[in-house]
């Protein structure tokens, strides 16, 4: 029977000083579920650096840190400075070590900017160069992001991808895509 991991504490998000920080929602939890499903694989991989682009409250990285442990550096980037502060608090609340880094303007903070692909479209081309031969790239998408096109696009960069977990939340169809070097 596989080990089950607890969801990180995040009650401080989306309130008070962190009211502008993305409150963990179905997409956050689906991503956490996908990482939990791959827990053994991630532990065996023993990564040096884990990077989260658009970390928000930091709940996803906090979860990953609880699975993989303190041997890795957890970089959490976000364009929202409040998110960076919230991530720091999430780290201390969950007894993990995360390194937030603040990025560019707040306008692009929610849902990856225009069409929901602004940040992703800048980041996707470099993913293949960033990933080690054993590395994994997880991307949470909604149907409107056109996940099939993303898989095709990254396929041309030498990354093999698939939807490893999907669900429906309200009107949105969410999918977690997972890529590795082919």
């Amino acid at each position, binding site marked *: 029977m596989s080990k089950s991991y607890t969801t990180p504490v995040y009650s401080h998000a989306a309130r008070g000083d962190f009211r502008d920080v993305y409150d963990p929602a179905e997409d956050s939890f689906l991503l956490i579920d996908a990482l939990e499903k791959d827990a053994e694989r991630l532990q065996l991989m023993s990564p*040096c650096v884990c990077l989260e682009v658009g970390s928000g409250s930091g709940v996803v990285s906090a979860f990953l840190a609880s699975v993989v442990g303190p041997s890795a*550096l957890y*970089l959490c*980037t976000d364009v929202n*400075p409040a998110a*960076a502060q919230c991530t*720091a608090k999430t780290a201390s609340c969950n007894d993990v070590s995360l390194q937030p*880094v*603040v990025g560019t303007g707040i306008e692009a903070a929610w849902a990856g900017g225009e069409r929901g692909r602004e940040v992703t479209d800048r980041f996707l081309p470099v993913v293949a160069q960033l990933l*080690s031969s054993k590395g994994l790239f997880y991307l949470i998408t909604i149907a409107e992001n056109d996940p099939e096109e993303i898989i095709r696009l990254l396929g041309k960069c030498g990354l093999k991808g698939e939807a490893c977990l999907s669900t429906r939340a309200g009107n949105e169809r969410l999918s977690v895509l997972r890529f590795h070097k082919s």
Partner: protein
Amino acid sequence: MFRSVFGRLLTETGCVLRGVQRRPIPGGVSLRGLSGLKDGEQFDLSLLELLVCPLSKKPLRYAVETNELINEELGIAYPIIDGIPNMIPQDARLIRKHTDPSPTPTQA
């Protein structure tokens, strides 16, 4: 911004990743004992291998005295607040004097 973070990684992928040593930092312990830093706000020097200036894509120097990441060439300093580097160019401090008075960058 993300190119700034990964600029070094792009040129030195394998070496940089293997070179990053993780030292778990228990809450409140300052590894270098610097008086300017409060508990829980220490800056991890291994980040210098990963972060570059978002404008020039070149490595930065950590200034202990002001707790900033310096781009000497461009004369700008990125603040580190509560151990969190702020890589937004508009929030950076200009080191050299300019003839036009510029507004003071706001601090978070």
